[in-house]
């Protein structure tokens, strides 16, 4: 017997909120980035589930593009983190406060 799609969607919702919680709570920039990846994966799972429920391959194509964008985002984001670390000697979100009013 197949697992109903609603279970997958609920799991994806919980995974997304866990990622959002980690992004808000943690201060290490690298761990915050990993939490962004968690949220992206939750949305990917939602897309694949809808692709199955609606019997439509369009959802899977969207996940393919999300994977590409996630890879690009990680490359640029980690480049920025490395640049900040070289200049500041830290990778904590609290210490990068040059724009604080």
């Amino acid at each position, binding site marked *: 017997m197949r697992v109903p799609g609603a279970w997958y969607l609920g799991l994806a919702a919980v*995974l997304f909120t866990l990622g*959002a919680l980690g992004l*808000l709570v943690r201060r290490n920039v690298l761990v915050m980035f990993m*939490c962004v990846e968690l949220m992206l994966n939750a949305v990917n*799972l939602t897309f*694949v589930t809808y692709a199955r429920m609606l019997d439509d*391959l369009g959802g899977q194509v969207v996940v393919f593009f999300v994977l590409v964008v996630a890879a690009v985002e*990680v490359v640029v984001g980690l480049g920025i*983190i490395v640049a900040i670390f070289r200049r500041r000697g830290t990778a904590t979100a609290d210490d990068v406060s040059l724009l604080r009013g």
Partner: protein
Amino acid sequence: MIDWVVFVVAGAACLAGALGVIVSRHPVHAALNLVMTLFAVAVLFVAQEAHFLAAVQVIVYAGAIVVLFLFVIMLLGIDRQEDIRTETLRGQRPLAFLVVALVLAEILLLARTTWVTGADSLVAAASGPGSNIAKLGELLFTRYLLAFEATSVLLVIAVVAAIMLARRAPEHPDDLTGDEGQVEGPGPSAEPVVAGAPGDAAVPG
């Protein structure tokens, strides 16, 4: 029956890995927990007959992206552990829990209504004859060709950006990035970068 077993095991691994990312104090442990979550999501993809995406998930995410994370952790030498008990911004953590609980409650409340509306198989049928990867490839190179080409441009931009960001400090210290170091003053972190800039600029490449 076996579907439920796969779903429960993979879902539990998925959530355990996500929790591990949040609570682990060492960034390397967080990255390894992330690998577990990504593998579990790949298993859930297989369970829903998205075989190509499961393979790409393992290759790109668990293979490339997590290795990139680990590489940056190693490069920066962040081996000191973060103290996650202290709270620098007062009241941030309870507020974060509150917001996240509200979002989850809202999503699950919506779950009680109808999940799916709309017509079936608007783009192409996922079921039926033919393998998953063949149908996906056909869609990518016909209907979504423009988006596919746009992602290649995006990847080129990312490569250029990564090279620009990973370069050493620029030759002229009055550039935008050099300015920031001067505003900072003779701090312990700004000093070696400014001092090392002319010497590094002489090295080609």
